[in-house]
């Protein structure tokens, strides 16, 4: 699509200016991992960028989302593009420390981004330098099917205790209280993060993911004790299905609640849900009085150290960081702009709720597999999955995670 539009544009330019626009274009290679909906949104952004900079041709190579995580390790060293997607927080640390990403502090300073992107600045900083541009983030929370609530005769919960108590009634109605698809493991990390943030608070959770707290600590067990209340009411075959399959269960009313990121709204709506029967709630308070932290994974664009067209890449980053571009991009993505001068669509209840939730949050966590180092994340998420299938193994699981912690940090 990009190339098609690009071609039309170039043709128009050639006809108008009667010059050889094509020949003089500088190529900007961009590797990314967009799903179909975000891909269209980014292609629109690229078209705008190219319209503003007719001398630049952005060539987007899109990878499969899961495969990309492996591919980036390879292409950064072998066939570096000028731009690459990645994630904020600890997840970018290996590339930063091994010198694979370029320092882009100058882009931040030249464009006043330290102020405009203040909410995401901390997660883009390592050693006092900025290593990329955040273009979007999104809230996590509990999405629920109002029809399922009606079918089970259940009120929307106000507290954690009510939420747990509801599960009994859902079970009686043959509805899964909580659904998830853990085949790819990560959806479980969202549940764990919230239980951890709500039980022990943000600082404790960040210490845990930073390896400062033993997994055998009583407070970790407290988190799992809360999870154990949901375990019997979670979709039984979660380990065999992907998150999209679980989304279908929510859509069909076979499940009531889904701890998910806002990106899932598109999937719910594709399945036939509307603003009328799809609900969103902030994850309820567990330990009273803890300041409310939220999960808001930030997606980012970086310039690889091996990039050949650095100048245009920085131009592109500045463009992506701008308020207008982020407003438009995130409107299409259905996500939240990281630029505080951007606006969000008021008519989308999920976006508004997310904007509300995140802007009033005490602090933002990235996500378990972005806050914790890769190996710890993998072992942790496997542990979560095992716990959900075999809750009686908890002690063995925590011992194992403690062993991994000793190894990793």
């Amino acid at each position: 699509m990009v190339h098609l539009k690009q071609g039309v544009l170039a043709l128009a330019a050639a006809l108008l200016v009667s010059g050889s626009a094509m020949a003089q274009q500088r190529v900007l290679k961009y590797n990314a991992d967009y799903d179909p909906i975000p891909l269209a949104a980014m292609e629109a952004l690229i078209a705008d960028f190219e319209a503003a900079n007719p001398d630049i041709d952005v060539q987007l190579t899109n990878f499969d989302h899961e495969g990309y995580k492996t591919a980036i390790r390879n292409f950064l060293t072998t066939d570096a593009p000028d731009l690459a997607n990645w994630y904020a927080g600890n997840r970018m640390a290996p590339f930063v420390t091994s010198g694979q990403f370029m320092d882009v502090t100058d882009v931040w300073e030249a464009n006043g981004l330290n102020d405009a992107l203040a909410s995401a600045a901390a997660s883009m900083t390592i050693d006092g330098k900025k290593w990329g541009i955040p273009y979007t983030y999104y809230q996590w929370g509990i999405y629920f099917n109002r029809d399922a609530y009606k079918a089970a005769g259940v009120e929307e919960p106000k507290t954690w205790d009510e939420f747990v108590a509801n599960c009994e009634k859902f079970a009686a109605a043959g509805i899964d209280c909580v659904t998830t698809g853990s085949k790819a493991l990560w959806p479980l990390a969202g549940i764990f993060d919230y239980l951890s943030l709500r039980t022990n608070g943000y600082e404790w959770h960040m210490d845990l993911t930073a390896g400062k707290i033993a997994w055998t600590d009583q407070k970790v067990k407290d988190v799992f004790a809360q999870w154990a209340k949901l375990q019997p009411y979670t979709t039984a075959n979660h380990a065999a299905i992907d998150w999209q399959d679980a989304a279908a269960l929510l859509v069909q009313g076979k499940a009531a609640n889904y701890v998910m990121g806002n990106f899932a709204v598109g999937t719910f709506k594709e399945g036939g849900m509307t603003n009328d029967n799809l609900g969103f709630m902030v994850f309820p308070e567990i330990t009273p009085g803890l300041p409310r932290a939220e999960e808001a994974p930030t997606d980012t664009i970086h310039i690889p150290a091996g990039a050949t067209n650095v100048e245009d890449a920085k131009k592109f980053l500045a463009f992506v960081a701008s308020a207008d571009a982020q407003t438009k991009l995130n409107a299409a993505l259905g996500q939240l702009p990281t630029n505080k001068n951007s606006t969000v669509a008021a008519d989308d209840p999920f976006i508004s709720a997310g904007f509300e939730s995140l802007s009033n949050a005490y602090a933002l966590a990235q996500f378990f597999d972005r806050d914790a180092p890769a190996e710890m994340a993998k072992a942790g998420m496997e542990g979560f999955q095992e716990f959900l299938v075999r809750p009686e193994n908890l002690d063995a699981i925590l011992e194992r995670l403690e062993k991994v912690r000793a190894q990793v940090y």
Partner: protein
Amino acid sequence: MFPRPIEQSSVAVQRLYKIALPVSLFLWLLPLLGVALTSLRPASDLAQGNYFGIPSYIAFENYWQLMVDSNIPQYMVNSLWVTIPTVIGAIALSCMTGFALAIYKFRSNLVIFFLFVAGNFVPFQILMVPVRDLTYSLGMYNTWYGLALFHIAFQTGFCTLFMRNFIKSLPFELIEAARVEGVAEWRIFWYVVLPLMRPAIAALSVLVFTFIWNDFFWASVLTTSATTQPITAGLSSLNGQWIAQWHLVSAGSVLAALPPVIMFFAMQKHFIAGLTLGAVK
């Protein structure tokens, strides 16, 4: 003949056998049939839970969608770029090594031969890290020729075993006679032995083609992008994108399986001859 020919059994047994044959074949190919049928089912049927009922219509559009909207055609072409040079390379090399090991008597002959045979059995994982580094440092990482070069080298092990045993079974007098005539060694290879190796070459070609086309491990170790990935790795990454879209996964599977299947049915005799080499003495 074992077992006793069915014609010598009672009519009842014969009838039973003739029923048992198609039934057992049906059960045997059940997963395959299921996937083939799913690949022709429209997406709307699957969404409505109509997995095994009569499809509302035959959806050739699934295939059309793959050919037009997905990277499958590119992956198939990539696979050919890896597979064909590998077949040519491995067979060329092994004709020579097989000839050397079958015809000449020298002290380390058997040791070298068994090194080829043993190397052929090693787990891929023990080669993975060094081969990846080597390919990378040769600047061939994520290229079809980087992948093909490794395949050529590895397949040479198996092909050498095959060729050497094949040449050993040829009448040695032919070579003796040529030597008496004073024919140079390379001319013996080219004009005497090579023409006789046609069946072996045919058998190995189909076998190596199938092995390489179906390779997944090395494809995922040595290639990363859609422009170089063979169909196996490509299908695996498409599978990551097409969650819950079984009509596309199925159609993709069928397309990926097609070339080796065609190869097999077209060259069945050679294929089986190659595979069962050594099964009879």
